[in-house]
């Protein structure tokens, strides 16, 4: 079995977002970058499946050279090798096309990624890749088991979940609780240094969207405090002052 996990390289969830260069760029000063938390769930489940069934596990990132520590961490967690498509991942269609291009050469059985990146929150790449490969794409997947070449899955829907079955190959956007996040051990970190990381130039680069300017939300006004013994007045305030009831 061949598994591909696609990871993003994004600001840590605690980052205070700021922009620079006339609000056209993220101010990366002091920002800690990580693999997206959803991607981490996908990778964690892929590692478990590799342990259970035996598989080759490749990680892929579309990004510039700065993303290599994030890729090395994925190798330290248990991926066998890595591919970096050397480009700024600015548009979902562009990223999906790069991934699909690699998939067409390698015939992966499972292509896993996070349900969405936490920078642009698009949640599009798995769907576009699925379409480009002509295979099903499903998201958000919260449970994944394999029986032969059939995947048994749970997908979150509004107010619950649906259970699904489909033949491989599949493209899946993952979320918790598909697996527990893993922490690399010393042996993993040492071996990651020598695992193959292939750098490839992008194929057929084209973008369909382009972000021209970023903005921060307006500052929040002060919080109106209500004494605990007058808690019941909150309902009046919500009804007559905030007008939300």
């Amino acid at each position, binding site marked *: 079995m061949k598994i591909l996990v696609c990871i993003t390289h994004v600001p840590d969830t605690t980052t205070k977002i700021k922009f620079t260069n006339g609000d056209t760029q993220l101010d990366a000063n002091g920002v800690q970058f990580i693999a997206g938390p959803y991607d981490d769930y996908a990778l964690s489940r892929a590692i478990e499946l590799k342990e259970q069934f035996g598989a080759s596990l490749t990680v892929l990132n579309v990004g510039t050279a700065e993303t290599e520590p994030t890729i090395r961490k994925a190798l330290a967690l248990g991926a066998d090798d890595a591919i970096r498509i050397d480009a700024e991942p600015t548009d979902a269609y562009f990223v999906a096309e790069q991934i699909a291009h690699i998939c067409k050469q390698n015939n992966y059985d499972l292509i896993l990624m996070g349900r969405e990146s936490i920078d642009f929150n698009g949640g*599009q790449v798995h*769907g576009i890749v699925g379409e480009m490969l002509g295979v099903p794409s499903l998201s958000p997947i919260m449970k994944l088991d394999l029986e032969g070449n059939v995947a048994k899955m749970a997908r979150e829907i*509004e107010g*619950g*979940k649906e259970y699904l079955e489909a033949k491989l190959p599949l493209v899946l956007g993952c979320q918790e*609780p598909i697996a527990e996040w893993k922490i690399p051990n010393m042996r993993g970190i040492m071996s990651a240094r020598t695992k193959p990381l292939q750098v490839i130039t992008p194929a057929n680069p084209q973008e369909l969207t382009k972000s021209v300017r970023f903005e921060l*939300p307006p500052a929040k006004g002060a919080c109106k405090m*209500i004494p605990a013994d007058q808690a*019941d007045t909150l309902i009046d305030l919500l009804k007559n002052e905030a007008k939300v009831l």
Partner: protein
Amino acid sequence: MSVLIFVETAEGKAKSSSLEAVAYGAKVAEMLGTSATALVLGDAQDLEGLGGYGANKVLHVADSRLNAGVIQAYGNVIAQAVEKENAQVLVVAKSALADTVAARVAGKLKAGLASNVVALPDLSNGFVVRRSIYTGKAFANTAVTSDKKILAIKKNIYTVTVTDAKASVESFNANLSDADFGVSITSTEKATGTVSLPEANLVVSGGRGLKGPENWGVIEDLAKALGAATGCSKPVSDLHWRPHHEHVGQTGVKVSPNLYIAVGISGAIQHLAGVNSSKCIVVINSDPEAPFFQAADYGIVGDAFQILPKLIEAAKAKL
């Protein structure tokens, strides 16, 4: 040319977020000087009524295999409808289903997809939309440069006015093959009789401060008195006090209701990421230093178990 709006249904009725999408799409059509077509899949009621939200026409694919949200089949039908209507813009209301389906359509039609759109497009210089990014911490103004464009709009961003206009209904036979149904849905588990969290205008959410699942009665009673959905923080769903679909935040459901009441939630940045586009936030917490108060409009410092019964009583008396 036209604007096509995909209307998602639940038990045959258009979801409120989709009605908002119809109104939004009708406005975009007006801005572009064209007409708005709503697309409904599977068994559905009151199709003419979508005219009240601005749709000129409703395309209905009455194929009962589409009663369940089969992602590949939906993507295929919507792409065919885009072609049939020669739609320049496709509008969907963001949801777990619509996001995935819109992505398939984007791949099929080579259409630029802007997600989490929070305002009408600016047509003064190309086609630029404002969208929420970094899980609500910022906005991007994004130009969609492809011929065909897809907008996935966030809930509660467009004011809907309803008229009694009726839309004409046309049935549409899309070409579907068995391959479109290659994924089988073996069973579904769904909470019934409660307000759906992503669709809710009002949300009451509880955190670890409630101490245990046995104490959720006050959250449910307040939600019931207000007609609100219930939510929770991540540790609460990790501990299985509440089901995962109630988990709000960075790694859970992102909500944008008119009112979000947070009870016993500290306000970690990852939780705030899921609620920061709420119109009004109320925080109830025993710790006056809880970071959530900085993101709140109204706050009460005190013990949830003393405060909530008073709120439930007041809500029952006054609403």
